[in-house]
């Protein structure tokens, strides 16, 4: 346990030192990785219990557009706009989740319902083009550096916002993984009927993870849009984004706390690396590699990169312990 604490301390120190060591460009990637990483982590709240959503872009879109529209149209600060977006996302999750879980819609049926939900949100954003700008996207009104507007000219400041939020989400994940609740959810993931028979309120537990996941995803979507300062139905909602979330979470390892963030870092460095190496000549090359990797990960490494690393770390102490007996 002391090992873990030392590791956490070193990690935290590194996180604080990072913005002063990294060039701006890399800091930009790290900030995006943290923000997308926390969204992927929110997806894995449900994903790791077999509740796979391929429409999480819906919640991201609801969060991002709610806060941006409130700011642009009524001048409402994102500090209120983000919670408003989270509330809307939670309501959406309840409206979809309650009947689905009540009627035991699971597996790929549930996945297809979330796909439909993602389409509904993306299409509504496009349809409301008078205020959202439709497919052309929109820009939150810029006011320079302002804490009230959650806008920072200096990347280092935004970096600390991202780190703080990311740590909060990791904290939520740890809090959600405690004791009985986790055991109950794992049981549901294994066999719903048996879990029900064992006295677990399946409906309530599943709604709980769905709602938490939706709320965090909405917040992440808002802050991400706030950082990029540009919203587009393709980049914060829709099928493409939803599938990218799933891929990153699986590749990084959805069963590990840091896995989804590692996934975000991996996908971002892949895109950026290929862009720097080949320029725009090879547009689409990154997604080609994503696609192949996703297939390979699901076939050979369903627990993701950190899942494999965890496996090694856990196996290593055993031979040392054996001679002592």
């Amino acid at each position, binding site marked *: 346990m002391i090992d873990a604490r030392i590791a956490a301390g070193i990690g935290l120190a590194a996180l604080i030192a990072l913005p002063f060591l990294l060039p701006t460009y890399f800091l930009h990637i790290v900030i995006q990785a943290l923000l997308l990483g926390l969204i992927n982590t929110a997806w894995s709240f449900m994903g790791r219990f*077999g509740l*796979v959503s*391929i429409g999480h872009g819906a919640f991201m879109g609801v969060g991002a557009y709610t806060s941006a529209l409130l700011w642009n149209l009524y001048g409402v600060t994102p500090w209120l706009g983000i919670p408003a977006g989270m509330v809307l996302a939670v309501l959406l999750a309840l409206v*979809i989740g309650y*009947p*689905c879980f009540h*009627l035991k*819609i699971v*597996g*790929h*049926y549930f*996945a*297809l*319902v979330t*796909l*439909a*939900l993602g*389409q*509904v949100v993306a*299409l*509504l954003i*496009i*349809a409301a083009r008078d205020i959202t700008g439709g497919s052309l996207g929109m820009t939150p009104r810029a006011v320079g550096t302002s804490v009230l507007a959650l806008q920072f000219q200096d990347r280092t400041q935004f970096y600390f916002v991202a780190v703080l939020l990311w740590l909060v989400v990791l904290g939520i994940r740890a809090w959600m993984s405690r004791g009985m609740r986790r055991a109950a959810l794992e049981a549901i993931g294994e066999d719903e009927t048996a879990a029900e028979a064992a006295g677990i309120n399946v409906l309530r537990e599943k709604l709980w993870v769905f709602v938490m996941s939706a709320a965090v995803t909405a917040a992440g979507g808002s802050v991400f849009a706030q950082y990029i300062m540009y919203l587009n139905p393709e980049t914060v909602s*829709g*099928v*493409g984004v939803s*599938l990218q979330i*799933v*891929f990153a979470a*699986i590749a990084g390892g959805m069963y590990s706390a840091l896995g989804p963030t590692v996934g975000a870092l991996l996908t971002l460095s892949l895109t950026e690396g290929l862009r720097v190496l080949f320029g725009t000549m*090879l*547009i*689409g*090359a*990154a*997604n*080609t590699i*994503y*696609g*192949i*990797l*996703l*297939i390979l990960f*699901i*076939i050979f490494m*369903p627990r993701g990169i950190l899942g494999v690393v965890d496996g090694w770390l856990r196996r290593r102490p055993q031979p040392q312990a054996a001679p002592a007996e």
Partner: protein
Amino acid sequence: MDIYLLEAVMNGIMLGGLLALLALGLNLIFGVIDVVWICYAELVMGGMYAIYWLHAVYAWPFLLACVAAIALVALFGLLMHRLIIEPILGSAPINQLLATGGMLFFLQSVATLLFGTDFRNVGIRLPIIELGDIDLSFARLLAFIAAIVGAAGLYLFLAKTYLGTAIRAIAQDREIMGLMGVDPRRIYLITSTIGGGLAGLAACLLVLQYDVHPFIGLTFGPITFMICVLGGLGNMFGGVIAAFIMSQIIAIVGYYFSVEISYVLAFVLFIVLIVIRPQGILGR
């Protein structure tokens, strides 16, 4: 009745034929192997590019290009099952869906790499049929007829042939069929090949109506999944009915409001229907 509304209804019927055809192959795979090929529309896109390339660039006759495209996509379906689905057939169904999601990314970006993001047209202009005051696109009528013929052909194959019977039996009970001397592995491979071939057939008809671009799959893919589920898995007839219901909603609501709102309503209807009738509109 408003003449434009009537035209919208007629166009809806034609769109229904196209959607029914698209849903056909997916429905077969969904029903028999219990796998969702989330990249199904991207297979169609691949077929469309194949036809474009063979016909518009290498100047093959259109029909020959179509036959080649159907064979190509059928082979792709076979390989996809053999290489991607088969190794993970034993794991949770959602994993298979996600693996084909990887294929979706792959196909989209390979198409972008090879052909760029330009919209490409095969350059075949079919005549417009005038029915009184209503204009009907011949390409759409062709798609409609092909969908009906395709559905009927598939129905006859499944109902009348030994192989078809084996495929239906596997869909009903996977475990017992192995004991009855049917090799599920072979049946799955055959089903995947037919499913791919049907995607190729859909490509032949779509290429007459739409320009090809790498992301065309996203425009009609999601609605196709909804139709399959609504029709009831593996229920060909249900799939056709669901395709016509969805296409009428899209056509009529699109006429009164906008295309986006019509699709929104179609997806909302899907969510509502799957919740009240998870077994599909014609489910047992």
